[in-house]
């Protein structure tokens, strides 16, 4: 019977469904896009290839990087410890002018072991830079061994300079070419899209000790050993990577070695991201519930109106003894039909909006929209919540319908 009622009041029905659909589309968009962005962030953190990061507040503030890396390496459960130094330098081609590049000093094998699988795929297969463990030139802190002089350049840099493997170049800490050292380009590596901004497309990878001595971070002017780096990234053995307790234990052991540096595990970062996600999800839900409450009120008003319009029909049914539950069921089913239609069109509309944004939005919007994930549990929960809302919305109208004064209604 309620179906015929719905058809008899097309305008009201469409309005109610539209109001609910709009109210539902908002949380669908917010939660799907928000959830997508967070799970993307989580995935990139979890796939980082390293689990623990040692950082210092100061620039290039980690001293004795080589020996620290060896000490961390000796902790049980650690797969690799990779010190990294990043300094802006100037690269001169044989006959060209200087071009600023970001030089990354690394220990090749350790660096490779702390990359995510995606990043590792961008590096040349056997990645040694002529000194796999950076021990030859470093020579136990004397910086006296022979330097390999090999560098890897990022693909954009290689293309811009029109260089190929085997070419010679000069790296200088300043714009003064004569302050530099000669290097050989032995290959290139790709950059993961979106990892570094467009400003950091020009990168040169070289053995840590060579960069340290080039920029004066190997030994001080007085000859004291510096061996500076920016951070040490620590990978745990694969069997322990997914085990928060083991990672926490290793983190604590690293922290005990270097109480003055900050040691963070990615599980910490992960839980921070999760906490942030919970907060923002709560915010989204709160924001959306405003719309949902408004549409709930709208639904109540529409159902109340319907009770008024159907006063005599309800009155007749009550008069001829149609049981109260059957009269209420009509209203309840009507409310549920409206919320179900509204909810499903809202979910569909939200998904449509996201895919339109992903397709036609500005680059940033479209990138974010492209990350959206549709959690079936959340969406089903939303629709279930709506059905519950329909139940609540029909309470007052049902009460009104059952309390209609029959003699007056049938007058």
């Amino acid at each position: 019977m309620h179906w015929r009622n719905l058809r008899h009041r097309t305008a009201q029905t469409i309005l109610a469904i539209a109001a609910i659909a709009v109210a539902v589309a908002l949380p669908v968009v917010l939660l799907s896009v928000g959830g997508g962005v967070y799970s993307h962030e989580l995935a990139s953190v979890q796939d980082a290839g390293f689990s623990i990061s040692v950082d210092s507040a100061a620039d290039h503030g980690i001293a004795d990087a080589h020996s620290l890396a060896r000490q961390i390496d000796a902790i049980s459960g650690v797969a690799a410890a990779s010190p990294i130094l990043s300094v802006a330098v100037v690269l001169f081609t044989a006959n060209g002018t200087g071009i600023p590049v970001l030089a990354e000093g690394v220990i090749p094998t350790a660096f490779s072991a702390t990359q995510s699988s995606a990043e590792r795929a961008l590096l040349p297969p056997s990645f040694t830079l002529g000194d796999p463990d950076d021990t030859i030139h470093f020579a136990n802190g004397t910086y006296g061994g022979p330097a390999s002089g090999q560098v890897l350049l990022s693909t954009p840099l290689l293309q811009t300079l029109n260089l190929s493997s085997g070419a010679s170049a000069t790296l200088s800490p300043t714009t003064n070419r004569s302050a530099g050292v000669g290097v050989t380009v032995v290959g290139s590596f790709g950059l993961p899209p979106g990892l570094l901004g467009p400003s950091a497309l020009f990168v040169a990878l070289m053995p840590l000790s060579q960069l340290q001595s080039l920029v004066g971070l190997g030994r001080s002017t007085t000859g004291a050993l510096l061996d500076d780096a920016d951070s040490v990234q620590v990978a745990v053995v694969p069997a322990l990577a997914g085990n928060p307790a083991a990672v926490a234990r290793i983190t604590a052991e690293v922290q005990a070695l270097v109480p003055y540096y900050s040691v963070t595990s990615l599980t910490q970062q992960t839980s921070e991201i999760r906490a942030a996600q919970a907060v923002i999800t709560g915010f989204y839900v709160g924001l959306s519930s405003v719309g949902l409450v408004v549409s709930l009120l709208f639904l109540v008003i529409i159902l109340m109106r319907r009770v008024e319009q159907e006063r005599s029909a309800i009155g007749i049914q009550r008069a001829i003894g149609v049981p109260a539950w059957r009269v209420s069921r009509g209203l309840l089913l009507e409310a549920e039909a409206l919320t179900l239609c509204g909810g499903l069109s809202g979910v569909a509309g939200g998904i449509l909006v996201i895919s339109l944004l992903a397709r036609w939005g500005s680059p940033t919007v479209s990138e974010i929209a492209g990350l959206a994930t549709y959690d079936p549990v959340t969406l089903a929960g939303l629709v279930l919540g709506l059905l519950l809302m329909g139940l609540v919305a029909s309470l007052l109208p049902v009460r009104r319908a059952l309390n209609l004064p029959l003699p007056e209604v049938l007058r």
Partner: protein
Amino acid sequence: MTSEPTVRLESVRRVYHAGGPDEVRALDGVSLTIAPGEYLSVEGPSGSGKTTLLNLLGLLDVPTEGRMLWRGTPVERLGERDRTRLRRTGIGFIFQRFYLLPTLTALENVALPLLAGGLPARERETRARMLLAQVGLADRERSFPHQLSGGEEQRVAIARALANGPQLLLADEPTGELDSTRAGQVLDLLEAAHRDTGAAVVVVTHNPTVASRADRHLVMRDGRVVSDTAGR
């Protein structure tokens, strides 16, 4: 207890806005016994309390004062749920303004009181069809009320009132909106139902022709029964 009255009213009052400045004594001390199978007419000027009386008899309303027994049971002991059940199983209503549900077909309107009775759908339909045939509308079962004439609508309403085999049929001006030919048909049906089912019938009317079909005639004035006579 076969001789138990269908309904019994003892000094029943129905007062609207009791105690207020606009107090209305719609029924002011009515005592009345309706035996099974009786056919009563109720006449009286407008506002004399006829509809109020019918609403009480039909358990749509409850007395403000006095005692009312429905087949021996005091109505004040009945809850809303019991009264709803009795309205469905024991009472048939026929209203002046027909009051069919506009979104239901003739057949569905007739089957409405059967819905809660636990009958399987097929039997409900068969019974509703039979009732429609009794009132001469076998060929209109799929019509909606707005597709029926007033007389036809009222016949559907009679079929619906008879659906559960009531002990009491109540009709408030059942022919008030019909011309005399159609009114005659409706009265014939009412009479046939009275004869065939043995239900007590109470017809409220302003029309002496309608009243003349009854065996017992009440006249009301100012909320009281001022005359109660038997005979055609």
